[in-house]
């Protein structure tokens, strides 16, 4: 089975081991130690870490299309935000009559805009199963339509990147409009419960953090399952020699479409888990800068490795948290400098550095080792 194959791989076992170990350590340090203890992990930190894990899942999704399929998407923020909005709509409906205006059905911003009834596209979002399905289906449907049009016309390379960027920009402008019915530039906020649990309690925050960790684990295994299958090798083939792949009888545009849709859905899940943890979703998540930032995480971590994307997302966002605390104005310069330095000196990213190290330590172990390293470079 393609999904269970990664579980037998050492690299995936190692990744999952580290991830679950980290989840357990954070949980224990949060619950078992009293608040005064220097090793105590505060609820604030738990939520911050949960946010990093959402970004890590998003980065894995981008690495799947960029690293293995060669499609540099500069619009993955759009899928992330759509998943986030689907979750946000569910959380809005959960508020019920506890809003400022006390309307049992209409969210506050609609009452404020004098709307009389719920727009049709808000129907069903009071039900968790429907909203959670939409978390996957809304980004998936957008990716399907967009990808079908783009790949069928054989749009590739820089042109495709620019179109994806335009896509997310257009969505940002649309979501800024109050008439769209998604809360305009304020977005959706003031959430109360998720599945009946109060979002403001520490226990719920910890639960969301653990759920995000599990989502990252599943997302990683799904991506790893795809890239180690024959389809994964076909997508590398599409990346490196598209015409050749076509003459072997593969429908390149369908391979691209499948991988792109899977990636968009994963990005949607990341967005959906992000929203309850940060407590707000607004159109700034659609901003082109954010989508470019994701690409920087992946480039920094190392393309076409998946675990590199996770490392990159966590490191860059940790640096961002620290930097914006110390000197907020310098962050964008630091990010730009980081990107330039990595492209020039570490074209393979941090993962490349790790691999070089491993290679030099087991040098001379003969040709049997070369097969695993050559697989890693693929």
């Amino acid at each position, binding site marked *: 089975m393609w999904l269970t194959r990664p579980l037998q791989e050492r690299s995936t076992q190692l990744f999952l081991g580290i991830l679950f170990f980290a989840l357990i350590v954070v949980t224990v340090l949060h619950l078992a130690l009293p608040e005064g203890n220097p090793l105590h992990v505060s609820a604030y930190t738990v939520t911050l870490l949960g946010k990093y894990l959402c970004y890590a899942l998003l980065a894995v999704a981008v690495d799947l299309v960029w690293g293995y399929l060669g499609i540099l998407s500069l619009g993955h923020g759009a899928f992330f935000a759509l998943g986030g909005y689907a979750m946000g709509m569910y959380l809005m409906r959960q508020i019920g009559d506890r809003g400022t205006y006390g309307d049992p059905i209409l969210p506050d911003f609609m009452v404020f805009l004098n709307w009389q009834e719920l727009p049709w596209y808000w129907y069903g979002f009071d039900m968790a199963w429907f909203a959670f399905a939409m978390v996957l289906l809304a980004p998936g449907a957008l990716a399907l339509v967009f990808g079908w049009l783009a790949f069928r016309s054989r749009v590739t390379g820089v042109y495709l990147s620019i179109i994806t960027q335009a896509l997310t920009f257009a969505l940002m402008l649309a979501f800024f409009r109050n008439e769209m019915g998604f809360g305009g530039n304020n977005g959706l906020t003031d959430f109360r419960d998720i599945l009946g649990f109060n979002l403001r309690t520490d226990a719920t925050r910890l639960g969301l953090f653990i759920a995000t960790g599990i989502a990252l684990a599943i997302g990683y295994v799904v991506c790893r399952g795809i890239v180690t299958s*024959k*389809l994964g090798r076909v997508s590398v083939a599409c990346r490196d020699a598209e015409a050749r792949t*076509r003459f*072997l*009888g593969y*429908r390149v545009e369908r391979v691209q479409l499948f991988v792109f849709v899977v990636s968009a859905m994963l990005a949607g899940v990341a967005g959906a888990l992000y929203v309850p943890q940060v407590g707000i979703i607004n159109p700034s998540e659609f901003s082109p800068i954010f989508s470019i930032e994701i690409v920087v995480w992946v480039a920094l971590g190392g393309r076409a490795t998946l675990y590199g994307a996770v490392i990159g997302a966590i490191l860059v966002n940790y640096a961002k948290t620290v930097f914006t605390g110390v000197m907020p104005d310098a962050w964008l310069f630091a990010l730009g400098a980081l990107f330039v330095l990595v492209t020039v000196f570490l074209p393979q990213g941090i993962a490349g550095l790790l691999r070089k190290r491993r290679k030099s330590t087991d040098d001379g172990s003969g040709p049997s080792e070369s097969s695993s390293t050559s697989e890693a470079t*693929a």
Partner: protein
Amino acid sequence: MSIMTELAARDRVFNFLTPTDSPVDVRHGPILYLEDVNVSFDGFRAINNLNLTIDDGELRCIIGPNGAGKTTMMDIITGKTAPDTGSVWFGSRHNLLTMSEPDIASLGIGRKFQKPTVFEALTVFENLELAMAADKRVFPTLTAQMKPKHRERIEEVLETINLQDLRDRPAGILSHGQKQWLEIGMLLMQKPRLLLVDEPVAGMTEQEMERTAELLTSLAGKQSVVVVEHDMGFVRSIARKVTVLHQGSVLAEGSMDQVSNDPEVIKVYLGEEA
């Protein structure tokens, strides 16, 4: 192909009435049939009333000076370029002009490019695995399992193309000649009915060339092979029938001796070398 052209040309049954997944029909002899094909790029006529017939199991060499339209002809057959006019049939049942590149490939036309194109990041073994005849739709590919008979088949081809020792190395490290061999190996994995081979011996040593000649001759009979080549020595060593292209149409056709004694051919092509 639009329905209007079909209505206008009523010399056969409507294309959409003929099943596309039916086997190739070669009862009438030819496996490939090009008639009155014309292509021009920005006014330049790359292919000019080209007529060409390849019989089932034949090994045919196509020669011609640069710009004679050899590669364009291959592009038309494999569905990469659509001709302005003319018809191209595979067997007597499949109109290639209505089909996409992957459809044509799965029908059994394999192609080796002029510049060797292999998947450099994948290993030699994986290159052959991807080329293997199989269900190439997305989901079957995702769930595909390597079976012992597949492995055997790949091993067999690895031996034929003499790359057993490099099976687990990325194809990017191969020499030019080895890449040519790997690409021929990938063609063999596809089990095609018709192989289109564009300049197979460029960059090969004398011995490698001999082995390639042996390989291509051994294929003929079971499969039909069309070889485009510049190397006259190589063509002479394998050719039974040679077609000379010049300015997008057939200038001469026949055995190597006939062709090389043809005054027209000597004038446009061989004359320069002799």
